[in-house]
């Protein structure tokens, strides 16, 4: 209760300050819009459904791209943890590729796939896949030996051992990877959508720029932040808390 009061207070003060600075008219309103005009843009955007359509398109893309990253990234992570050959060869490459900002893939994606849906998805996948991989690998490597022994001892072999012991036992690390992967995917998606008429949120951002409509730019930015934050809170934080409770990593 006190926490939410504090948070609410903080945002009220922040918006009031913003309003005050805008009222001082140090910068022209088309460069520094007031909160009210941003709110107005939000209302118009939702009113004529452009924002809803943009959100829908972006969400669809991220579901495909992120879904692919999670499936392939986790598989690659398991492979890295299971085989020293893969670790010695691919391991270094994975780490060095992970240091590339996802925007670096953009020129390559555009040349390979043109200004298409595929180019955006490619950037999303390249941006997020390796974060999932690296955390999965760490998770699998940290599975206590006793769980493996207990699992084998109780008759788990091969894919069952993987599915019923290794996977759940590495979950605390994997969740970190899923969360990181999501954040990277979301960022990559927005950057990717900014390159052409893609109709997603990133495109709406660029449209605001083209129309010299700073209010719309800020409105879309708020939308992007809002979605990023909500997914993190509603999905990943819940997941993490659930695992912590189950495992007894926090006092209940």
């Amino acid at each position, binding site marked *: 209760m006190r926490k939410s009061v504090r948070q609410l207070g903080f945002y009220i003060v922040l918006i009031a300050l913003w309003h005050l600075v805008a009222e001082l008219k140090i910068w022209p309103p088309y460069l520094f819009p007031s909160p009210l005009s941003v709110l107005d843009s939000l209302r118009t955007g939702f009113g004529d459904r452009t924002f809803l359509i943009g959100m829908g398109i972006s969400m669809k893309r991220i579901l495909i791209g992120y879904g692919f990253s999670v499936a392939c990234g986790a598989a690659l992570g398991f492979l890295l943890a299971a085989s020293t050959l893969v670790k010695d060869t691919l391991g270094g490459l994975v780490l060095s590729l992970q240091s590339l900002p996802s925007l670096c893939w953009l020129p390559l994606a555009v040349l390979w796939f043109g200004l298409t849906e595929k180019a955006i998805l490619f950037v999303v996948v390249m941006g997020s896949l390796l974060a999932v991989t690296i955390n999965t690998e760490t998770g699998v490597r940290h599975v206590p030996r006793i769980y493996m022994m207990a699992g084998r001892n*109780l008759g788990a072999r091969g894919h069952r051992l993987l599915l019923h012991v290794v996977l759940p036992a590495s979950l605390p690390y994997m969740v970190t990877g899923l969360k990181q992967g999501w954040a990277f995917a979301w960022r990559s998606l927005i950057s990717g959508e900014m390159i052409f008429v893609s109709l997603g949120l990133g495109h709406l951002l660029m449209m605001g720029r083209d129309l010299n409509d700073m209010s719309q730019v800020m409105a879309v930015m708020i939308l992007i932040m809002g979605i990023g934050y909500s997914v993190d809170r509603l999905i990943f934080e819940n997941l993490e808390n659930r695992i912590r409770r189950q495992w007894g990593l926090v006092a209940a």
Partner: protein
Amino acid sequence: MLETLSNPKTKLHLRDVSRTFKTPQGTLTALEGIDLEVREREFLCVLGPSGCGKSTLLNLMAGLDEPTRGDVRIDGHLVEGPGTDRIVIFQELGLFPWLTVRENVEFGLRMQGVPRAERHSRAQKYLRMVHLSQFERSHVHQLSGGMKQRVALARSLVTEPDVLLMDEPFAALDAQTRDLLHEELERIWEETGKTIVFVTHNVREAVRLGDRVILLTFRPGRVKREFPVKLPRPRNLEDPKLTLMARTVVAQLKEEIDKAVEAEYGYEEKR
């Protein structure tokens, strides 16, 4: 009891079993020339100082490890890998924190592909046996040390293995809890007719539980002596006969512990 004696069928048979490990300091012989027969329904306790290869012996029986020489047989068949006829209860237990108590108990059945409803009822039967029915929905971290031991016991019993291999399962518990678990284990052993191999470094525990106690030497582990324990059951730790028996075993064990201490601290400590 009479039936056990008149039916001395061999359950586990170790013949000339040795196990060596390669370490940076050279080759370590954990076990050497172990000949051992465990009879059906026998409660065998394996005793020895830490580092004498007790756990290695258990892992060989479990099929989680392979002997360097010799062979391990169960019911006359060569042991090649783990099997559901033998279950190990590790000291660290290895209960799965992501599962509830009942799901932990059901795990072995699930791996065997037993249908849900049957899994359920069989798990409940064994949870009742260890008096944990009320806790079936709890998670592992919510239980006390003794309760975790009982979950591990139920989880091992549920697949109805012939042999239970227990690796110092009660070492980390307080004395009262251990007493209680001794009683429960003795009762369950009598009810279910399992063959139990119980590894411990606690002499009184060994004498309290075993039909027979074997004492291993320190590095390399060999069978130093065997003590049949003919005290009537249920036994009590305070029984003077049991204490007396323990004392003779302790004297023998002491020699081996001294050797272990020497190996660990070096010779300069010796007066």
